[in-house]
């Protein structure tokens, strides 16, 4: 690290749990962020700011005016432009010293497989069940930790999933690919709710990458109306087609 790095990261270097060693781990890390919406915006901003050495930004969408109420990576000047490229520009201005790679398509199949294989950690910030299931399967197949969050209305869900999957994977909790009827487009979302969930993904990512113990094995449910949390212990499903049996890893 040079003098600028010491100044840039000084406030987190002060923390005993991170310090120089943790910062060097962050700088040497690569994180794949799947989706640059209301979750991916704060997650990417915090991880870029914290000095995660390489961020891979995946999104197939362009900035729409209805995104701006919650997707804080984007401004009114960015309308109709590809989110992944706008995010790359914005994040590079925030932190010129990190590497930013762009995947301007919906992650699936071999592109997803390669992206997960070549990363240290995956943040699922996507907006649909099909992508969430595919990302989880790829993470289990390649033994990569996954921080999965979601939000709609006044509710949020968060899971930190890590190898060797002793408390299961995303599919152990959600065994069917049923697409929920309520999403941000149909049921609405308030910015700070999805912001809280994306921010917690960044927090858990920094903990995990810098060598602190992340909050694994628990599904956290956020009720923004009551401002309350429930923590539910996860359990591996013995017959889980992704992480359970010998026939797992269906990639």
């Amino acid at each position: 690290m040079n003098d600028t790095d010491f100044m840039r990261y000084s406030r987190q270097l002060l923390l005993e749990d991170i310090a120089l060693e943790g910062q060097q781990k962050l700088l040497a890390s690569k994180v794949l962020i799947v989706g640059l919406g209301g979750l991916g915006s704060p997650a990417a901003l915090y991880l870029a700011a914290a000095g995660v050495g390489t961020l891979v930004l995946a999104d197939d969408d362009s900035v729409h005016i209805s995104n701006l109420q919650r997707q804080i990576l984007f401004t009114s000047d960015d309308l109709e432009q590809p989110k992944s490229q706008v995010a790359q520009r914005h994040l590079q201005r925030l932190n010129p010293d990190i590497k930013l790679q762009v995947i301007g398509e919906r992650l699936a199949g071999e592109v997803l497989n390669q992206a997960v294989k070549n990363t240290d950690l995956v943040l699922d910030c996507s907006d649909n069940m099909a992508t969430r299931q595919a990302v989880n399967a790829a993470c289990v197949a390649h033994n990569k930790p996954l921080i999965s969050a979601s939000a709609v209305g006044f509710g949020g869900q968060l899971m930190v999933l890590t190898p060797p999957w002793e408390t299961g994977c995303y599919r152990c909790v959600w065994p069917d690919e049923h697409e929920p009827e309520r999403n941000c487009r149909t049921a609405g979302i308030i910015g700070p709710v999805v912001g809280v969930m994306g921010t917690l993904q960044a927090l858990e990512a920094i903990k995990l990458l810098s060598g602190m113990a992340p909050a694994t094995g628990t599904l956290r449910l956020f009720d923004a109306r009551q401002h309350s949390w429930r923590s539910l212990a996860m359990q591996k499903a013995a017959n889980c087609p992704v992480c359970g049996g010998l026939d797992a890893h269906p990639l």
Partner: protein
Amino acid sequence: MHIHFNDEPLQCPDNLTLAKLLEQLRLLKPGVALAINQTIVPREKWETHLLHDGDHILLFQAIAGG
């Protein structure tokens, strides 16, 4: 026996499985997960898992948005 279902008290017969309870409540559908006493019970166990007096059951829906 007495249980709590989504924080509301509920009276139900003994020797009731999770699947039977959800059937009776017409809540056995895709896209839901369930925890008993703050521990998630995988779907594959719902048919056989017997409820106990005093159980706190939480049924909640998948959120995929973001």
